[in-house]
């Protein structure tokens, strides 16, 4: 992500890893995209992508854990990184599921990661939605 002036805006939300809190994150996502003047398709795509990513990770962790969702907004794109602690040994994001297909369709660049930010005990999904890519 470019670090042009002014620098990207960062919004970080931490929620208990529960399905009932996902709508809150989703709403933040579409609000940020709307304020960044993304077109309606892109706003809706991002909203659904965030929903999908959060749902996927909530299922891979326990309710007592925390889901961290970081939005990085700049002039051309919104980056989303959602991460949590794996709920059991070997819990990881499947990249061969319909859910993954959904994410790849809705966002421009999607990656599943394990052990990010120097924390080996972490799983997550990172994606970017670009402003001008809806053809």
């Amino acid at each position, binding site marked *: 992500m470019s670090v042009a002036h002014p620098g990207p805006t960062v919004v970080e939300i931490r929620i208990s890893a529960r399905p009932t809190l996902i709508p809150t994150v989703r*709403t933040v996502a*579409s*609000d940020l995209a*709307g*304020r960044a*003047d*993304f*077109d*309606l*398709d*892109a*706003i*809706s*795509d991002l*909203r*659904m992508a965030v*929903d*999908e990513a959060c*749902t996927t990770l909530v*299922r891979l962790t326990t309710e007592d854990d925390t889901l961290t969702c970081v939005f990085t907004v700049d002039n051309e794109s919104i980056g989303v990184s959602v991460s949590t602690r794996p709920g059991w040994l070997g819990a990881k994001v499947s990249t*061969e*599921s*319909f*859910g993954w*297909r*959904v994410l790849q*369709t809705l966002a421009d660049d999607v990656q599943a990661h394990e052990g990010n930010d120097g924390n080996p005990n972490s799983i997550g999904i990172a994606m970017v939605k670009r402003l001008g890519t*809806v*053809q």
Partner: protein
Amino acid sequence: MTRPGSSSGAPSNGPLQSPNGSAHHEAARHDETPTDATPGSGDAAGSPGDDEGGERRRDTEYAHLVPLLSEFAELEPDDPRREALRDELVEGYLPVARHIARRFSNRGEPMDDLVQVATVGLINAVDRFQPDRGSDFFSFAVPTISGEVRRHFRDQGWSMRVPRRLKDLHVSINAAVSELSQGLGRAPRPSEIAARLDVPVADVLEGLEAAQAYRSSSLDEMLTSEEGGATLGDLLGEADAELERVEYQQALEPLLGELPDRERTIVMLRFFGNLTQTQIADRVGISQMHVSRLLAQTLVKLRQRLEAE
């Protein structure tokens, strides 16, 4: 009240205009009550006599009620004869209310409710009609009744209390989105919608957010065009071929099969046909916001079913 054979004939008077101005197919098919001859809702003060065949039909069906309308209008509000006369008028014109209710019948609301709402509209029309103004009752009653039914759709669809201002804004935004999409060839941005409607961007954002609280698709249906694209079959063929290439096809396919046709089409085109929501809206003939809502709902459904497997 039905006339054998008349429904298949050419509707000489044209169907009533649907609220968004396009002739509704259902209305054309139900061309069997005299109300079809009523002028469209747009010209309440227009010339009722430009449509002679309809005039004649209508006159014979409802002629006996016309003097009662004048009589009713002249009664004092506390006149004891008022109630009986009103009942007679409402009952007499009930086929008109039923006919209008039927025009809205394929939009997901129970027919009984629609007739009831339309009857409320008819009662209002009877109460407010002023024969001395010169226009005939139909020109006044049809828009009054349709307005009542439309208001019902507008108010029913919201899952939480949303201020009327936002509901109205939702309607304007929806219309602007469809116009702008046509011109731009893509979905508009909030700033473009704001410029089009001449309102602040903040209002548009608020309206878009309110749209998320919109539960029912009934209002969207009213803003929907009737035609699906001719190329839908080809596009779906390509999407099907793409679906066959993925590993989870065997798990997903039966679940897709359980979906209503339209939902399945939308999911296929978005995730396997690589069309944008706006392109899908165009092909399927519904609004972008409607596609967005159906996609989100369907994903939740599919996720639950895949989970349950």
